[in-house]
């Protein structure tokens, strides 16, 4: 939860507050040639969404290790099994 909540708040800020609710005032500002509100709605928010998921996956790796529930070995062992012909 302590990982998820800040990420979901960021998701809402970029996806809704900046891209939609504040789009009109932000459009007065120019950003790399775009009106800023338009840029958030059609580019920026998407880029942020991608980043959020990778940040989440990375942070969860750390949490998993902290609580000793990580599954690195399981995953790679499985891959080895698959490489050796799919039969364990």
């Amino acid at each position, binding site marked *: 939860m302590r990982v998820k909540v800040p990420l979901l708040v960021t998701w809402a800020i970029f996806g809704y507050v900046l891209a939609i609710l504040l789009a009109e005032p932000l459009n007065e500002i120019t950003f790399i040639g775009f*009106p800023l509100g338009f840029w958030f709605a059609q580019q920026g928010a998407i880029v942020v969404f*991608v980043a959020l998921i990778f940040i989440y996956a990375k942070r969860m790796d750390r949490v998993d290790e902290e609580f000793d529930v990580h*599954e690195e070995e399981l995953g790679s062992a499985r891959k080895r099994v698959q490489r050796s012909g799919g039969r364990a």
Partner: protein
Amino acid sequence: MSDIELWALIFTVLTFSLYIGIAFRTRVKDTEGFYVAGHGVPAAANGAAIAADWMSAASFISMAGLISFLGFDGAIYLLGWTGGYVLLALLLAPYLRKFGKYTVPDFVGDRYSESARAVAVVAAVFVSFTYVAGQMAGVGIVFSRFIGVTITTGVIIGMCVVVIYAVLGGMKGITWTQVAQYSVLIIAYLIPAWAIAARLTDVPVPQISFGEIATTLDQLQTDFGLSSYTEPFTNRPMQDVFFVALALMIGTAGLPHIIVRFYTTPSVRAARYSAGWALLFIALLYTTAPAVAVFSKTNLLEDVANQPWSERPDWIRNWEATGLMGFEDANGNGLVDSITSNPETAPGELVVSPDIMVLANPEIAGLPAPVVGLVAAGGLAAALSTASGLLLVIGSAIGHDLYYKRFRPEATEKQRLAAGRIAIGGAVLVAGYFGVNPPGFVAQVVAFAFGLAAASFFPIIVLGIFWKKTNAVGAVSGLVTGLTLTALYMYMTLYGGMEPWFGISPEGIGAIGAIINFAVTITVSNLTAPPSDDIQLLIEEVRHPRLGGEAVRLPDSERVTSGPS
């Protein structure tokens, strides 16, 4: 046969041979391989497969054109169809992967009750069929437009290819073909976009360079009497943009054919990363689409606006022949005075199908015929990959949830596999029939399927994972209330002549339906007895990230144990 038809044929034959080759390499012998690709798909490959599964003929062919006519408000599609992955990655994917079963109804059935499973089967099949009919029709249209065969022949060719790799390889075959199809469709989308960006601006990266063109387009649009392109809320009020984006996001996170793809990864960790890869791969197309929209709208306006129709350029003459463009000189002055993409809601002298924006792009950019052929192969890849993913959901709902779980729990592994194959085969036939004879309501239903998915699956799955007290009575009442109110509102505003409330269009009502579903499920669950200890243990187990790490007895002794056994 023209150059374009020849090249389209060459690329189609090449890519189809590739797909069939993959099918033979990935044949499966057991149900685990058939339904979840043996839980053996690496994160990045699964990401590409999800991206192909997700991006349909509509994303590839129609979306940029729709955006170009909506301007800023086109962001509903861009935000709505990407933002859902954040919800999916954070709230659903890792937990459902941990659950480790085959289908979405499996989770609903084990977590709540058998009657809830039955409702989920019906909902999954209904949502998937409405979708798949559109994909098959898309295959037929690409064939008829680029290769010059009839739509029916095109649909039949598409059906044969899907049958070969879906029936032979099940989820495994579909996954690896989707990886190939993603590569084909993204190349076919990006090459013309880059070329056109390089032609119009100094920077060949469309994502960066369309800013300056957007400003030009603002001017062009205002000169032509249209609203400024980048100005928000000219087509839809702010609250509607908000709710439609929200409904599409929640709906995305509730679509069964996307959720099942997360069951195919080897670990919970890989499920998290594959969501990231999926959205990255999707974002490649989704950040390019608004640029394509701006470029092609600018080209179109520069070529025709306020100019005599008799002097129109060649590319317009070519596309006029396909019926995708039409001109009617309403005031008889010989000039193009107005443009519309939908003559039913907005009159205009020049009627342009939004599809043209992507299809005509290579020609406008002056690219050679092979590139146009590649675009045809890309459109087919987009349609076929989505169709196969949907067909697998239908096949598994019938072969696994209905036949095995409900009627023949004693069926052998061999019978179950045969049932899965027959179910997919049958689903292809039905889908093909709807592809050739699309029911009139399909196009509308697809847009609304998101609202229905948002109001039904998402709330009860999320609550089922995160709130132990959610029980079967609560979930079923929430699902039924959310779904009924949403469907009723859609029906009343579309056919009942009801004025939308607070400017919220029927596409956006699913967000409200989802909130109602949450509220009802929580209230009813609080008023009734909490679920049994077995189910509470199941939730503990699902929330514990390591696969096979905890020795917890599950209600279903058939649970597939994961890990390298």
